[in-house]
C-alpha cells in the first residue's frame, strides 16, 4: 500500500533517524540541544501523523506531550542549566566523529536487517516504523557511550526514549497505558536528572563524567 499516507509516515520516521545522526556529530552543547529539540519536534509530527492515519485520537495527546515537553520545555530548561553551570565549551567525544558515524551506519544497517527479516508478515508501515525506531534507539545508545559529559548523556537517553515512542505509536492500537507511561517516565527521568545535575555541580564543580570516575569506589 504505497499511498501518500505511507510515504509521509515513512518520511517522518526516516527524518528522525537522520536527526539522530546529526546529534552524533554536534560537538557544542547548544547545538546539541537545538538538534534534540528538532528531534522531538519531528517525533511529535510523526506521532500526530500516526494518530491521523490510525484514526486514534489518544495519540494526539502523545504528540502534544512530545511537542510541548520534549521539544520546548526540556531544551529550554537544559539551556538554562548549561548557562548556570558555565559549560558552553566544546564537548569532547570519546571516539572521533568519523568512527562514530561509521558505527552509527553499522547500527542502522543491523536494525534494518534484524527487524525487516523478522517482521515479514506484519503490515509494511509497522515494520518499517519498527526498523526506524530500533535505529533511533541504537543511535541514542551509541551517543550515550561516546559522550562523557553528563548533559549530552541525558540528551542521548532522551533521543533513545524518542525511538521507543516511535515504536509504541507505530504498533497499531497499542493501549494508552504505555504511551502515557513512556511520556511520564521521561518526566520523572528529567526531574531526577535535574536534581542530579545540580547536586553534581554542588559537589564536583563539573559535569564531566571522567572527572567523576576518579571517585570510583575501587580506586580509593
Amino acid at each position, binding site marked *: 500500500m504505497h499511498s501518500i499516507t505511507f510515504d509521509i509516515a515513512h518520511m517522518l520516521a526516516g527524518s528522525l533517524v537522520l536527526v539522530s545522526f546529526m546529534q552524533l556529530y554536534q560537538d557544542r552543547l547548544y547545538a546539541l540541544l537545538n538538534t534534540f529539540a528538532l528531534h522531538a519536534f519531528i517525533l511529535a509530527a510523526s506521532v500526530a501523523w500516526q494518530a491521523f492515519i490510525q484514526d486514534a485520537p489518544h495519540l494526539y495527546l502523545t504528540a502534544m506531550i512530545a511537542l510541548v515537553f520534549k521539544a520546548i520545555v526540556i531544551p529550554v530548561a537544559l539551556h538554562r542549566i548549561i548557562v548556570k553551570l558555565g559549560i558552553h565549551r566544546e564537548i569532547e567525544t570519546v571516539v572521533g566523529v568519523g568512527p562514530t558515524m561509521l558505527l552509527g551506519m553499522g547500527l542502522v544497517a543491523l536494525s534494518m536487517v534484524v527487524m525487516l527479516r523478522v517482521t515479514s508478515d506484519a503490515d509494511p508501515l509497522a515494520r518499517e516504523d519498527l526498523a526506524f525506531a530500533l535505529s533511533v534507539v541504537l543511535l541514542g545508545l551509541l551517543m550515550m557511550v561516546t559522550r562523557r559529559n553528563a548533559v549530552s548523556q541525558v540528551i542521548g537517553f532522551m533521543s533513545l526514549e524518542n525511538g521507543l515512542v516511535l515504536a509504541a505509536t507505530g504498533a497499531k492500537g497499542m493501549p494508552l497505558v504505555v504511551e502515557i*507511561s513512556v511520556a511520564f517516565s521521561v518526566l520523572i527521568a528529567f526531574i531526577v536528572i535535574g536534581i542530579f545535575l545540580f547536586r553534581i555541580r554542588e559537589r564536583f564543580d563539573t559535569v564531566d563524567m571522567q572527572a567523576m570516575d576518579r571517585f570510583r569506589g575501587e580506586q580509593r
Partner: protein
Amino acid sequence: MRFDALEAVLLIPLMAAALLAALPGYRLTAGLNVAAALLTFLAAASLLVVQPASGDYLLVDDLNKVFIVLTTFVAFTTSVFSASYIGHEIEIGRLTPASVRFYHAMYQVLMFAMNLALVANNIGLMWVAIEVATLTTVLMVGIYRTHEALEAAWKYFILGSVGIALALFGTILVYMAARPVIGEGLYAMVWTVLVAHAAKFDPALLNVAFVFLLLGYGTKVGLAPLHAWLPDAHAEGPTPISAVLSGLLLNVALYALLRFKMLLAVNPAALAPGPLMVMMGLISCVFAALMLYRRRDIKRMFAYSSIEHMGIIVFAFGMGGSLANFAGLLHMTMHSLTKSAIFFAVGHIAQVKGTQKIANMGGLTVTHPVLGWGLVLGVAAIAGLPPLGIFMSEFLVLSSTFARQPWLAAILALGILLALGGLFLRLNTIAFGEPRGPTAPAQASYVPMFAHFAIVFVAGIYLPPQLVTGFQNVARLLG
C-alpha cells in the same frame, strides 16, 4: 467498593508513603515504616490462604505468590533493621531529618512498585512498576550526597534506564507479535491472554523480543556483561537499601524475565530461551566468583556475591525441568534471606568501624562476638556449606544438571568453589586475627538477622511439605 488482600498489598505501601512524606520525627516514622511493612506482609501472607480472582490488570497465581510473600517478608525485616541503622546515621550526622523523611517515603514507594510489578497482569504495567522501582532506588542510592554515592547513583541511573528502555522495546515487540492473533487494544498486553494464545504468535518476532527483554531485564538482574551498576549501587547507598536491592529488586527483575520465558515456552517454533539464560548465568557466576578475590570494600564484596548467586539462579531456571526449576526457586528464596541478613550484619559492622574497607576491620569475633559470629554464619551459609539452606539448593541445582549436562555442572561447581575460596579469604581478615579499628559496642538490632539465619538453617534440614508442594507446583508452571 470491594476490597481484598491483593489491593491491600498495593494500597498499604502507597498510603504509608504519603503519610511518611508528611510526618516529621525519626522515631515515629521509623515505627510507622515497620508497621506498614508488617501490615503489607500480613496481607501478602493471606494471599496464600484466600486467592483473589485475577482481573485484566492484576493477577495472583502460584508463581507470584511465592515472590510476593518473600518480598514483603524481607521488606518487613529490613524495615526493622533500617530503624536501628537510620537511628545511628542520624546520631553521627550522616543523614539529616529531612533526608530521613524522604528515605522512609521512598522505602514505601519502592515496596509499592515491587509489589505492583509482581502482581501486574499487564506487561506494560509491569514495565512501569519496574521503572518506578528503579527510579526510587536511584534516589536512595544517592542519598548520602558524597562523590561516591552520586557517581554510583548516576551510573545506576544510566545503565538501569538503558536496560529498562531495551525491556520496553521488547515489550512493544511482544505486543506486535500478539496483535495479529488477539487483536488490537488492551487484551494484547494482558499476560494471561498472551500465554493462552502464544502458540500462534509469529516466532521470529517473539525471538527478537526475548533477546531485548533478556538484555533489558537482565541488566536489572545484574547478569555479567551488564552488571557494572550493581557493585557501586550496593556499596554507596544506605545498607538497608543494599539488602533490599540484593534480596528483592533483583528477584523482581528475574520474575519479569521468567514470565516472558513462560510465554516463549508455549510457542513450539520460537527459540528455546533456556540456553541463552544458561550461558548468561554461567558467565555471571564464574566471573563474579573471580572478582571476589580482589575486593577491598566489604559491601562491594557481597554485591559481587549477589551477582554470582543470581547467575546460579538464572542458570537453574535456564536448565528448566521441574527439578532444576524447584532448585532455582529454593535457591532464590535462600539467597534473598541469607544475603539480606548478611547486609544487616555488614551494616552494623560498618557503623561500628566507621568504614567499609576490609583492611580496617579485624578480629570481629573477639571485639563484637554477636556481629562477628553472625557474619561468619552468614558467609558460611552464602558460600554453601552444609547443613544450611543454600547448600541444599546448590546441591539440587548441581545434581539435576549433572544428570543432563555434566560439563555445565562442572563449570558451575568450579564457580561455586571459587566463590567459597574468595569469601573465606576475606572473612578470615574481617572476623579473626588481630582486632583492628574502633571497638565501641554496637547498638544493633540482632533479631532480623538471626530470624533469617534461623529460617535458612531449618530449611537446610527440613522443608515443610506444604512448601515443597507449593514450590513443585510453581516448578511445573515454569515448565
